[in-house]
């Protein structure tokens, strides 16, 4: 395929352009602390309380964190990243708050400023620390509450604010809206790839992301080919195609709920039985696991990822693949929100095996997998560039150790991060996507 | 008293004090042989299990000298099978043991005739001769 894509360099230029310090909300220090606490209070529940009350401060989580491993900076110990939340919990929400209040200090606006770096720049929410914790504490969930608190206090980094505002106010991301999607669909139509756009009724509603439209139109085209090949009754809606959710990334609830609602309402309107998530980890996690909870009611459709879809279709015999026999090997990079947090771990491996590829596992794989280094919107932050690159080096090292010919991943966000990292370090191993690999090997 | 023996209480315990005591005796003998002072050990000061005192006596055995002293009740002075080690048992007039010592020496002090007794003896003998 030769669908015209934005070059990586152009995209990086676009990110650099975004990296301007736009003025945030004008809030007094007291206001910020008050709002942060209010946001914490909104999210604290029994689960978080048990977590906060169980932490032993053993520090093992640091050993799971790529940012700590890359820098040996003790501030990047995951346990430390939710310290203000724990402080707030202990002082104001915990059963023994009267006791703790006598011995601990209150959180301050200086804390919030400091933690902006720790929870936005130095955490991709990958949840690897959740897996090492001997107490089973969901550290990443606590850090997510931290982002929520900082968002409430107006401490979202400006790059993230720009894209959040864009999604909330214009329903576009990186300038990609209905027009851009329509243009792509048209172009694909000219290439003979039919994309049933804006159907009023369909069983399957496909979503995509701005990143795909901009950078990886081939992946979008591949998805369309697979759906067509499988004979699915599908559509993609130009008014609700964006799977990415900047609200959940920034910790901004209204934006998160707005973005979810746009999808859910449209899926309900067209009677979709399935909402098919593109290669985007956080998008899958958001709709699959948070959607119903944030909407307050069970979803009337199933949410499945394209990897699950392909695996199921192959198994059901509706999709047949050409099996390669050239001994090519790949390693699969697990997007944290798809595997560790989403449970989609085996399906992509089954698909790659079905393609006749040798799947070589990195030392840390599946639920213990290392993050690409730029998840959870981190890749837009200029201030995190160094950290991101260092974390990428760990991933790169593990991939190199496998000796695999290529890296396949199931998340366009991971993919762009790995490509930026490779670009920075002159790394040559090709990074590709699962759907593209599948689409290139569809049996006739 | 024989009925006490029918009570089925047995003790096969060792306090662990017997062996150190024997070592102490060995060291005392060496010191004595080097021309240093003798040693007296008070057996009542040691916590010993029932039967252990007898075990000590049996281990030491009996040697060549045995002396019965009749002074304020009977006292048995027995050289053990280890020359220089003496077992001294003081009893009162009712034959009850009032003290028991192990003395490491060439000759126990109590066996020597005492100066005061010799003086008293001279007096008595002189009185005898006068009459």
């Amino acid at each position: 395929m030769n669908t015209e894509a934005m070059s990586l360099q152009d995209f990086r230029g676009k990110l650099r352009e975004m990296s301007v310090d736009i003025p945030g909300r004008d809030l007094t220090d007291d206001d910020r602390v008050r709002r942060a606490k209010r946001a914490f209070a909104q999210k604290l529940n029994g689960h978080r309380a048990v977590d906060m009350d169980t932490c032993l401060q053993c520090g093992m989580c640091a050993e799971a964190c790529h940012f700590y491993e890359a820098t040996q900076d003790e501030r990047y110990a995951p346990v430390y990243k939710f310290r203000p939340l724990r402080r707030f919990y202990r002082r104001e929400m915990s059963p023994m708050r009267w006791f703790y209040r006598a011995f601990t200090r209150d959180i301050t606006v200086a804390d919030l400023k400091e933690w902006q770096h720790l929870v936005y720049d130095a955490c991709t929410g990958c949840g690897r620390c959740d897996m090492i914790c001997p107490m089973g504490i969901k550290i990443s969930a606590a850090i997510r509450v931290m982002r929520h608190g900082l968002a409430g206090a107006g401490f979202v980094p400006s790059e993230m604010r720009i894209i959040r505002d864009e999604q909330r106010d214009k329903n576009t991301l990186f300038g990609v809206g209905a027009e851009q999607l329509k243009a792509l669909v048209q172009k694909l139509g000219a290439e003979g790839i039919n994309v049933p756009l804006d159907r009023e009724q369909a069983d399957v509603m496909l979503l995509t992301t701005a990143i795909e439209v901009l950078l990886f139109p081939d992946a979008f085209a591949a998805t369309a080919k697979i759906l067509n090949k499988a004979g699915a009754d599908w559509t993609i809606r130009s008014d609700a195609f964006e799977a990415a959710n900047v609200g959940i990334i920034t910790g901004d609830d209204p934006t998160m709920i707005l973005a979810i609602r746009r999808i859910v309402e449209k899926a309900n309107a067209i009677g979709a039985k399935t909402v098919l998530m593109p290669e985007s980890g956080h998008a899958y996690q958001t709709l699959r696991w948070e959607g119903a909870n944030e909407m307050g009611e069970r979803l009337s459709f199933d949410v499945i990822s394209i990897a699950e879809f392909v695996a199921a279709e192959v198994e059901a015999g509706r999709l047949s693949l050409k099996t390669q026999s050239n001994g090519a090997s790949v390693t699969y990079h697990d997007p944290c929100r798809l595997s560790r947090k989403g449970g989609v771990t085996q399906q992509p491996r089954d698909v790659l095996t079905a393609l006749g590829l040798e799947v070589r596992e990195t030392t840390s794989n599946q639920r213990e997998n290392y993050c690409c280094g730029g998840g959870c919107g981190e890749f837009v932050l200029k201030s995190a560039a160094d950290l991101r690159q260092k974390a990428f080096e760990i991933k790169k090292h593990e991939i190199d150790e496998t000796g695999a010919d290529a890296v396949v991943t199931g998340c366009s966000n991971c993919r762009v991060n790995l490509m930026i990292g490779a670009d920075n370090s002159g790394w040559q191993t090709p990074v590709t996507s699962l759907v593209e690999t599948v689409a290139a090997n569809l049996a006739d | 008293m024989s009925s006490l023996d029918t009570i089925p209480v047995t003790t096969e315990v060792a306090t662990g004090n017997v062996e150190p005591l024997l070592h102490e005796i060995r060291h005392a003998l060496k010191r004595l042989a080097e021309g240093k002072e003798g040693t007296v050990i008070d057996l009542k000061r040691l916590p010993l299990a029932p039967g252990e005192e007898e075990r000590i006596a049996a281990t030491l055995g009996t040697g060549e000298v045995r002396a019965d002293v009749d002074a304020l009740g009977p006292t048995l002075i027995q050289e053990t099978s280890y020359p220089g080690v003496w077992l001294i048992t003081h009893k009162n007039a009712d034959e009850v043991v009032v003290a028991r010592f192990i003395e490491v020496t060439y000759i126990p002090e109590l066996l020597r005739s005492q100066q005061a007794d010799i003086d008293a003896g001279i007096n008595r003998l002189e009185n005898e001769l006068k009459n």
Partner: protein
Amino acid sequence: MTLLEFASGPGLQWALWIFVFGITWRVVGAVFLLSRKDISKPRHTNTISAGLGAVWSRSSPAHAFEKKIRFQHVTGYAWHFALFISVLFFAPHILFFESLLGFSWPHLPNTIILITSIIATAVLIALLIRRATHPVQRFISNADDYISIFVVLVPLLTGILAFAHFGARYETLLAVHLLSVEVMLIWFPFGKLMHMIMTMPARFQAGTAFGRRGVKA
């Protein structure tokens, strides 16, 4: 009233009351905050067994992690085993528990208890040193971390001294040992010693949360 009489009487009673009161206060207060029921469609529905699985599996970290935390892994096991053997299988301790619970269980020879208690003490001191020197642990530690180690270390030390009848009269050692245990009981609900109660529920809730997503916790 002698020190020992206080320690084995009113001191013990008050410590136990505070212990029980504090634990129920903290556990009920945390759990009763409640969490909204997760209404997302579960991938696996048998979340109970996933929860129980996590209670078990979190005792042995995945291989990729174990290499990096071997010291804590090994010392963690050594510490807890040595401590529980020393606490639960020393004959006088069993008598102590029996006087509260009304039943008893077989004890282990004192030599084994002495060894385990020395191991426990040594490991705890090693953990204390690590906490004070390891960059991450030193950085994240607060008063609770040190107090909690201290209130457990002192009963161990006084226990060993009482066992050996060393340093003071036995009744004084025993009283100090009991008092140190009472201090520990009183501190227990307020600090992180609570993990003894909370670990299983925390692991269980992690197991169920991951389990319904089809992820092995």
